[in-house]
């Protein structure tokens, strides 16, 4: 999509610099001239929102790290010190803690959008797999971040999740001891989690750059799933069109974000995490953060520890194989009436698993978790491969432009 840049700086100094390091041309071709499909809807603004969230998390996180102490005797107090004595500390901490949730809300919308419009299909498989890698790193980062305040949920959440590795045959216990840096979750664990929590966002930036690079090679998918045929007719230049639309969507998202920071900052957290970690007292219910609940439900649905761990990691790993599991030639669910129904059930299944992940693992909740887990995997392993072979799809529009421009009187904005 983005060929060699035709960008020529206006000033002599700019031309001098450009001939030595063509960074201006890179920015111009990526964020100004880059052709975006004319028919993108607001679900396509979450990429920009996620970029913003990553930067916001890094900035608030660096400020918090300046005041935080990663030691079992001081971590809890240092977080309260941030809340009380650091200028704007409460804002930094609530922005960062709720920012993690906002990041996941945005990434889940972004992923479900990809799932609905078939954005993972050729030629975007690598783009999609890079996205799965980003998701995994995000989860690891968020999990380690939640341990840092060293509250009861921090400690017991870390204990439960690190213990999962002990399910690995033969070497499990050795791996768990190695992860902990001792024989239980303790000061070495907290220290390394802090170091990794600080490192991983920068790894994320690296993968995000690859993700955006891959995107700019294949170009964006769009609600019709029809490829761009005529750049002049089917696309609009990124700036001003996508820039202003993304900005509008981002500020809408910031209003949503601000509601959580300023008015319900502890809603998404757990009261137990305002109790300092105590290895001698187990909370009545150990629950992870809301964004892990569907996976936690899958973990607990399997009646064997090792099986549960495999199912949980498998539920994420399976996403990487999605481009080859879905056999349909048609991308967008708008033209796949049967897939559309299965997709909606899949979304409800994920929400249902999230609810069950927060409930105690007993009685009917276990049965429900098992049924929904079955559908989760069935969706990828049975429904998607077969549906592509048997589904009757609706006729696709000939071009992207045909799907949005009024018949005949099309006013065209040529992409530069």
């Amino acid at each position, binding site marked *: 999509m983005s060929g060699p840049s035709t960008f020529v700086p206006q000033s002599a100094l700019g031309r001098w610099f450009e001939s030595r390091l063509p960074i201006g041309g890179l920015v111009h071709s990526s964020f100004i001239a880059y052709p975006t499909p004319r028919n993108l809807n607001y679900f396509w603004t979450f990429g920009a929102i996620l970029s913003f969230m990553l930067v916001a998390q890094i900035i608030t996180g660096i400020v918090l790290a300046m005041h935080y102490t990663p030691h079992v005797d001081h971590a809890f107090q240092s977080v309260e010190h941030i809340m009380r004595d650091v200028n704007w500390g409460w*804002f930094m901490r609530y922005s960062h803690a709720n920012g993690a949730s906002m990041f996941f809300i945005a990434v889940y919308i972004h992923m479900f959008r990809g799932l609905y419009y078939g954005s993972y299909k050729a030629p975007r498989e690598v783009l999609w797999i890079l996205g799965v890698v980003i998701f995994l790193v995000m989860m690891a980062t968020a999990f380690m971040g939640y341990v840092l305040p060293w509250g009861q949920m921090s400690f017991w959440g870390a204990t439960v999740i690190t213990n999962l590795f002990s399910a690995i045959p033969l070497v499990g216990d050795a791996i768990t001891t190695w992860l902990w840096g001792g024989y239980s979750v303790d000061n070495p664990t907290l220290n390394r989690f802090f170091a990794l929590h600080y490192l991983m966002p920068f790894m994320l930036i690296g993968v995000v750059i690859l993700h955006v690079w891959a995107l700019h090679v294949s170009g964006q998918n769009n609600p019709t799933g029809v490829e761009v045929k005529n750049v002049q007719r089917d696309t609009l230049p990124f700036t001003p069109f996508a820039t202003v639309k993304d900005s509008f969507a981002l500020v809408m998202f910031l209003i949503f974000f601000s509601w959580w920071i300023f008015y*319900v900052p502890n809603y998404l957290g757990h009261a137990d995490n*305002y*109790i300092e970690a105590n290895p001698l007292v187990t909370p009545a219910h150990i629950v992870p953060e809301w964004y892990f609940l569907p996976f936690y439900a899958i973990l607990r649905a399997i009646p064997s520890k090792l099986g549960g761990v495999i199912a949980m990691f498998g539920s994420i790993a399976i996403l990487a194989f999605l481009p080859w599991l879905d056999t349909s030639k048609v991308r967008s669910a708008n033209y796949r009436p049967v897939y559309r129904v299965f997709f909606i059930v899949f979304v409800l299944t994920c929400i249902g698993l999230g609810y069950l992940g927060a409930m105690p693992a007993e009685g009917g909740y276990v049965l429900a978790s098992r049924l929904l887990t079955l559908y989760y995997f069935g969706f990828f392993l049975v429904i998607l491969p077969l549906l592509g072979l048997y589904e009757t799809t609706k006729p696709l529009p000939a071009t992207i432009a045909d799907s949005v421009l009024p018949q005949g009187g099309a006013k065209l904005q040529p992409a530069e």
Partner: protein
Amino acid sequence: MSELKDMTMKSFKSICLALALAGASITPALAAGAGPSPERQSWTFAGPFGQFDRGQVQRGFKVYREVCAACHSINLMSFRNLAEPGGPEFSQAQVKALAAEYKIKDFDDKGEPVERDGRPADRFPKLFANADAAAATHGAAPPDLSVMAKARSYSRGFPMFVFDAFPGIAYQEHGVDYLVALLNGYTKADDPNWNAYYPGNMIKMANPLSDGQVEYGDGAPQTVVQYARDVSAFLMWTAEPKLEARKRTGLNVMLFLFVFVGLLYFTKKRIWADAH
């Protein structure tokens, strides 16, 4: 869940033992399914424009000091906080006098341990050297109350918990309402350790409040119901001393963002006018 927890426990034999011994000290923050739900209180600090009632927080401090402070510290608070905006807002002179009533452990210039008078910059002192010492005195270690109003909650169940996040009907005061309920929950006259709202109903803290126990100077009723509300409001402030600043800032941020998003909307409309 229980299975997973069992597996967790397997590698923690010593903890299992400790748990078995200290079974009664397992205090879940979520009083889910344990007795009645606390009654929802009306608070001046609730809602987007909420502010503490100065008189109430000042009375609450008096209740804390004369009743709770016998066993419970508020070690995350400094005396100076009592004079800062957004709390009880005592005068500097009052805080200075108050701090001087406390004895603070320190070292003199020869390195000898001394006890000196408190200063506004000092933290409220810890009452015990550690939790073991506290447990030895009281049977169970009385928890620090600094963030207690945020460290307790109760489950409202589906779908109410969803609505609790919504603008206009947001409900964030679960913890402080639980504290009020707990302090009013000693409903069996013959058993001062029986509490209707405490998980398991048997609480180590015997009924701490009685009518007329604390003298109010402002004419507020000197009843357990009033004491419970006042001290809970005070503990909400110690848990969230920047609550007023947060809500005020939120209003400014929202006003700015709404204007900004409006301008962006019309800009977007103009730019896209010919594109569709």
